């Protein structure tokens, strides 16, 4: 591995080019990237891929299982399951992406501040982070979501974002603490650069790798979180289709007899989450070659 790295380095390529070269050889990483790309395409091209509108009721095909007309069957009120899964990718990705953005913004800001300032700033921010991670994530998300009377996507993604920021803050903080002692940062301090310049130009760019890895794994967690909240009825609201909501709908039927109503929407969740988990694990291998 070391020889390999030395050989790669001798070509004078940037760390990102090296990481990309490593990623292309990573088999499970490629599999994860394919799964994620598939879901993103489904969300973007939903009207082209879905064969029916997601809210059209086919009363003549009541309780119909998988068939040539309805590939994955129809749901309890006779809507096409395949079309609803394709459109459901939109809600899932939108919420997860926005929630991850909230976590990243809060976590990076809090982590860099705590790590660079130290002292009581560090103490206060980290105790708040402790308080947020003390409770099981789903309960915290439920409490925040349920606190608002209006059910909008914004409430859901802010709640999920507030659940995830603490882990990111800890990672950025510990990274900042060790970077602060590095020679190049000390040199920047000696040159008299301002705090903002040191943090934004010298410290944060060096935190990018771990942040990308954590954000990818957070995407997986947020997709599960959104599905859970929608399953409980406090997430994405009908008529907008969501995978968790479809599972909640399926519960009104005998699951064993109408198996397709629950199997496929949940399968979509599992495949998407697996994709992000595989991608995150691979990115960790690729961006952190020390291990």
């Amino acid at each position, binding site marked *: 591995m070391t020889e390999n790295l030395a050989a790669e380095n001798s070509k004078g390529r940037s760390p990102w080019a090296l990481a990309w070269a490593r990623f292309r050889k990573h088999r499970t990483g490629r599999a994860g990237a394919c799964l994620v790309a598939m879901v993103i395409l489904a969300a973007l091209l939903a009207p082209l891929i879905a064969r029916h509108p997601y809210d059209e009721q086919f009363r003549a095909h009541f309780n119909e299982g998988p068939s040539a007309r309805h590939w994955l069957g129809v749901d309890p009120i006779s809507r096409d399951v395949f079309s609803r899964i394709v459109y459901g990718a939109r809600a899932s990705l939108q919420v997860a992406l926005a929630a991850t953005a909230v976590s990243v913004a809060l976590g990076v800001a809090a982590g860099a501040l705590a790590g660079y300032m130290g002292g009581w700033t560090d103490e206060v921010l980290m105790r708040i982070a402790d*308080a947020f991670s*003390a*409770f*099981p994530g*789903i*309960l915290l998300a*439920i*409490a925040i979501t*349920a*606190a*608002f*009377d209006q059910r909008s996507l914004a409430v859901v993604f802010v709640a999920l974002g507030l659940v995830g920021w603490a882990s990111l803050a800890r990672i950025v903080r510990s990274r900042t603490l060790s970077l602060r002692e590095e020679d190049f940062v000390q040199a920047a301090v000696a040159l008299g650069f301002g705090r903002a310049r040191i943090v934004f130009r010298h410290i944060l760019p060096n935190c990018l790798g771990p942040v990308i890895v954590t954000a990818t794994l957070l995407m*997986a967690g947020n997709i*599960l979180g959104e*599905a*859970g909240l929608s*399953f*409980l009825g*406090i997430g994405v609201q009908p008529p907008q289709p969501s995978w*968790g909501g479809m*599972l909640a709908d*399926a*519960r009104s039927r*005998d*699951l*064993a*007899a109408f*198996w397709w109503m*629950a*199997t496929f*929407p*949940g*399968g979509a*969740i*599992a495949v998407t*989450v*697996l994709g992000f*988990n*595989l991608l995150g*694990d691979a990115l960790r291998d690729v961006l952190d070659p020390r291990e």
Partner: protein
Amino acid sequence: MTSFILRRLFNLVPVLIGISLATFVMLYVLPGDPAEMLTPRRADPLTVKQIRQKHHLDDPLPVRYAAFLGRLARGDLGVSIRSERPVTKILLNRFFPTAQLAIGSLLFALALGLPAGVLSAVRPRSWIDGASMLVALAGVSLPVFWLGMMLIVLNGQLGAVFAVSGYAPFSPYHFVLPCVALGTVTAALLARLTRASMLEELHRDYVRTARAKGVAEWCVVLRHALRNALVPIVTVIGVSLASLLSGAVLTETVFNIPGLGREMFDAIVARDYPVVVGAVMWLALTFVIVNLIVDLFYAWLDPRIRYD
């Protein structure tokens, strides 16, 4: 040792007071009114007012919190706004199904996750390693409520061997499916962690020494390496148990189990303040006690750790 346990339990008092105060303030700040949630949309304003008066919802926050502390000193958590039953009784009733589910799924997770992790570490890059790590990765990616529903489908196809809904004390007929569903994620986590921890220990010098002495391989793995590898694993087991005991609202919903998770969910949605505050304090108590047990377990695993 006894003084250590007593000291830790004594530290619990300020923690519980702090947590109850934080919960009170949070519920006070957040929008939503239990009296309006309880009554129909265009209810008689007088009825709403009566409910508010009965539960002292119009009193200022310090007055309400002082009254709460006064009752707490007598072991009384107040009554639920929804059912008017004592909160302590509700929590106790709801805790038994949750405890049964938590212990059952943890046992399932241990029985599956530990051997899988150890076998993978002993034969890294073998088919058994590849297979169990693939299953473990899938396990952490599955939504627990969907897994529960798939077990219900499977159970139906196989002729309804188990109940798919409801609860009865100590009845495997009722708790096998929910425990398998809930335990799978924990099993997957444990398998991945056990593998990593065991791999690290198996490369240590004392393992080489034991092998050089001619100690049987199973003994090296199970008595020497595993015992040391267990330290980080016990931490995760403790965290898992604590979070399982705080109720699994999704699993409880799928299998219609009247547990703590579902009660908390309903209470939060209905702004049933006394139940929410009581449940949060109960959770804090569970977390602290489980962590105490984990700390005592460390001392047993690693004789260098002493708490005197």
